[in-house]
């Protein structure tokens, strides 16, 4: 059977691939959405923090012999801690100012971090092996699916949905959301709002680092890996609606699929299609697909 001249089996394969790339978009845009939704900071260093995650995993494997599984837990904690430090020392001074200041600060940080790593490690990137359990492929009949990529989809779904659940459906999430609406009132109830905000930023950064560790075995661990993907991820967040958690998740996976299909039907446009969609969405629905106009 053929769909638009492409055998349907090949098409399934491409859709699956799109879903895998969408997993990374979703994981990264989720962190951005959390940070923007709760701190009102446009975190431009998100890509650099994703890259940091991959590099910490790479370095801890090669210098300290720490394996993938431990890295998957430790790296987000470590990079998240640097996020806490950044929030404590720099970002918190900017909350009362325009969005632009936060954006510029985090953009500058990203350039510095990337520059330092490029200086140290060069641009070609380092190899990171996939963990042994996930080496090899599943034969799905219509395609070979590398086991590691299957793992990426599963983990990304679990992480995305649990984050959504915590923020939208638990008491902690309710505090967080309340604190963004009216911090002084929430503080009056005896909740330490500044600490909550700090930890939220740390969590967003940890998510980026987590995505970085997940990406390390697939892509080369290279200083520019974050710079390449962050622009796309911003488009995802804008399409989904700034600050909307579910919007970021659904749009991440959705745009991954659209991009995957474009790679089959008109490969030349595959790195622009997301921006075309972004333009159309902004024209028709300026707040994004799932965003609400404030």
């Amino acid at each position, binding site marked *: 059977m053929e769909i638009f001249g492409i055998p349907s089996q090949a098409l399934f394969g491409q859709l699956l691939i799109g879903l895998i790339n969408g997993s990374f978009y979703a994981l990264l845009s989720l962190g951005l959405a959390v940070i923007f939704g709760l701190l009102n900071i446009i975190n431009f260093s998100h890509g650099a923090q994703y890259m940091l995650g991959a590099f910490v995993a790479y370095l801890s494997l090669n210098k300290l012999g720490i394996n993938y599984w431990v890295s998957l837990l430790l790296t987000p904690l470590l990079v998240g801690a640097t996020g806490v430090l950044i929030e404590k020392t720099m970002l918190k001074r900017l909350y009362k100012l325009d969005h632009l200041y936060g954006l510029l600060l985090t953009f500058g940080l990203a350039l510095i971090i990337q520059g330092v790593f490029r200086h140290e490690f060069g*641009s*070609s*990137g380092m190899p990171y092996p996939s963990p042994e359990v996930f080496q090899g492929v599943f034969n799905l009949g219509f395609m070979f699916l590398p086991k590691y990529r299957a793992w990426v989809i599963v983990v990304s779904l679990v992480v995305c949905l649990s984050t959504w659940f915590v923020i939208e459906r638990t008491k902690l999430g309710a505090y967080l959301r309340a604190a963004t609406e009216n911090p002084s009132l929430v503080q009056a109830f005896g909740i330490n709002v500044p600490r909550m905000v700090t930890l939220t930023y740390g969590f967003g950064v940890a998510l980026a680092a987590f995505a970085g560790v997940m990406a390390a075995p697939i892509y080369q661990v290279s200083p520019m890996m974050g710079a390449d993907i962050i622009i796309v991820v911003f488009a995802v967040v804008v399409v989904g609606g700034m600050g909307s958690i579910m919007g970021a998740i659904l749009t991440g996976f959705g745009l991954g699929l659209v991009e995957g299909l474009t*790679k089959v039907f008109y490969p030349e446009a595959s790195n622009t299609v997301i921006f075309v969609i972004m333009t159309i969405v902004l024209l028709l629905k300026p707040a994004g697909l799932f965003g609400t106009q404030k």
Partner: protein
Amino acid sequence: MKRNLISLAVAAACAFAGSAQAQISDGIVKIGVLNDMSGLYSDITGQGSVVAARMAVEDYIRASKSTLKVEIVGADHQNKPDVGSNVARQWYDTEKVDMIADVPTSSIGLAIAKISADKGKLHVNSGSATADLSGKACNANTIHWAYDTWMLANGTGKAIVKSGGDTWFFLTADYAFGHALERDTEAVVLKNGGKVVGKVRTPFPTQDFSSFLLQAQASKAKIIGLANAGGDTTNSIKQAFEFGITKGGQNLAGLLVFLPDVHSLSLEKAQGLMLTETFYWDLNEQTRAFTKRFAAANGGKYPSMVHAGVYSSVIHYLKAVDAAKTDDGTKVAAKMKELPTDDVLFGKGTVRADGRKIHPAYLFEVKKPSESKGPYDYYKLVSTIPANEAFRPLSESDCPLVKK
């Protein structure tokens, strides 16, 4: 972003500089190294090319006792033709740069060649691959040094077709370089009795090649030809292994693979790849001695073919400036074609009328991990393609400068 003109203005002036010669504009020969200092080609070119140019100036002046005053500047073109063209214009118009060296990314190389001709300056290109620089886009002010797509196709492409890889599917970087490499390789494949069953143009640069690799897999071609370079090549090779494409009986042909790419892939993934280069650090005593000095000045990283090209081309350029007693771009270009070339990295050679520098090329195979003695010990020499066969013969050239 990253619009940093890295001003490296390091004057490599000679120890005993005499009075400046009258014919040298403003008394200084100024060489601009324009390349990718921050993106996916920065390990292949980048800062290493500045190091190589500086070494060339030192070595030339020491050996020839020349009284030239030479200055090297470097800039990042960010792989964007508009940025590269602006830097070149600024260099030529206001900063008195006489020659632009290196320039990877074929689209930018072609732009700089045109600007250099318009302004009567000189461009000696070592970084770009497109054979059009000495073909239909050639001009009297451009010399193409280290390698080109015709040479790569003729080396790697021919060897693979002859060893039975006769059906091809191309993954092609969607810009001037990829198109030229695909075109030249396709010609070689067809000429040697092979067949091209499909191709896909991938945006430049791309991180995830899995979708394109699946298309290549579905084509059932024996060979997947990678008409890309740098990070694109390493990512596509890595992901082809991940998807079990090589286990399924298809083979990859890395049409342009540099030593730093192999280094970054690791031998496990790169072993068995056939590739063509015109320089490898471990060719002979002289290349090893050069590499030792280069690595010391370049943070331990070994030179790529492009770095070697920059070194060799700057030496020949300075030799021509001294011989022509001027730094006028057009005159020096003519002198460079007139004088035979000779340096420690590429040996003796010539620059042809179409601006093509001629030297031997080498077909290498990447070693197995067990065969390698350590970092950078990566290549086995399969065969040497003599200088007169390595590059497109003048009789096939579509360069307007070639009289037929």
